[in-house]
């Protein structure tokens, strides 16, 4: 009884099923390349049985691995005329995944050390880019305001010049990337400027949809000081002062 409760506590620190699997393998002092399926599967199912309450989201991930284990086990049990070749061993799927996982774990440990080191160095880049207080008081622009400005702008352009429509296709991703690239270089993107730069209505429309996608994904935010002031697009920062 004692052992099982201790077991549970330890499991709290696991990030996912692969973590648990690695732990089980380590606990049994088994080499990853040589996994006894029966033992691991039993341990794994035992773990699932031990849980009296089920968090569906989390358990679904665990069940996926349980299913994989059982699949591999069934493959191993099937009688075959010829013994399987080395690389066709069904356990190989699991071994590859675990090795990849273990490597990623090690890499994240390494990044953690690096982070710790860098935390102690204060760089000029750590200074927040000239953010004055009044700039922080921008209010977010609603979707309707954005659409309205966009179409007003397009209308103005339409009357200014007549252009033939070229049969060129614009990709949403490219337009999104354009906005993000701009924001990587500059602190903000001027809404009007950006759409004035677009060559055709189609291009501007795709760029506008791209902007909406980015806003929806909460990667950027469109802000305005007050009405009738320029709309600016910013990269969304959780907390400018904390990083």
């Amino acid at each position: 009884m004692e052992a099982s409760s201790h077991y549970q506590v330890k499991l709290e620190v696991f990030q996912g099923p692969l973590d648990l699997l690695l732990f089980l393998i380590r606990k049994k002092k088994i080499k990853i390349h040589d996994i006894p399926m029966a033992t691991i599967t039993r341990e794994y199912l035992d773990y699932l049985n031990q849980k009296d309450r089920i968090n569906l989201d989390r358990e679904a991930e665990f069940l996926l691995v349980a299913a994989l284990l059982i699949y591999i086990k069934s493959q191993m049990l099937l009688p075959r005329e010829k013994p399987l070749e080395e690389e066709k061993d069904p356990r190989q799927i699991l071994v590859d995944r675990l090795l990849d996982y273990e490597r990623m774990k090690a890499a994240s440990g390494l990044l953690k050390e690096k982070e710790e080191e860098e935390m102690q160095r204060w760089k000029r880049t750590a200074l927040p880019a000239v953010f004055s207080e009044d700039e922080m008081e921008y209010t977010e622009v609603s979707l309707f305001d954005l659409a309205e400005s966009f179409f007003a702008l397009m209308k103005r352009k339409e009357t200014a010049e007549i252009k033939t429509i070229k049969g060129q296709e614009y990709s949403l991703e490219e337009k999104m990337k354009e906005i993000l690239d701009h924001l990587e270089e500059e602190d903000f993107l001027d809404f009007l400027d950006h759409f004035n730069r677009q060559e055709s209505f189609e291009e501007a429309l795709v760029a506008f949809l791209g902007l909406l996608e980015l806003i929806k994904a909460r990667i950027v935010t469109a802000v305005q000081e007050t009405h009738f002031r320029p709309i600016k697009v910013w990269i969304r920062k959780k907390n400018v002062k904390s990083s």
Partner: protein
Amino acid sequence: MENRLKEIIESLIFMSLEPLTLEKIKGVLTEFNEREIEQAINELLETFVTNERGIQIIQAAGGYLFSTKPEHDSWIKRLLKLERKNRLSSAALETLSAIAYHQPITLAEISALRGVDSSHTLKTLLQKRLAKIVGRKKSPGNPLIYRTSEKFLAYFGLNNIKDLPSPEEMSKILEEENISEEDSPTQ
């Protein structure tokens, strides 16, 4: 003249809010030839190794930047009235290493590698600009693909993504760790 060049470069690095690349320095100092500039930078870096100053010039994300010495950390935090800086969560670190070693990579691939759904973590990393969208994969559903950003390099003090140990080196480190684990007495 050479001394002045060193000073000019120092002031350029000081004024830059991002790691200043050699190319940018060369682009500004058009009246000097490349060899002179490179030599001046090396000399400038040397002066920071030997002199008794609280700051130094380091290389990160492919450029040069000013940094305080790590051993002064506690006093700087006192000045800025900060208890500690926010660290990345282990989920964020894992996701970053998955991206760093497998880029360009999709969300589904990251989740498969980690064995858990990573959409929330990835979103946070995009917000922190440690990862970036680089396009879409030409496969069913055209999922977005991600890479680590310049800021990722700067954040971890890496000059280049190749500064990370290669997968082979990583495996070697792991093997050594496993051996030492086996050697250690068990309870």
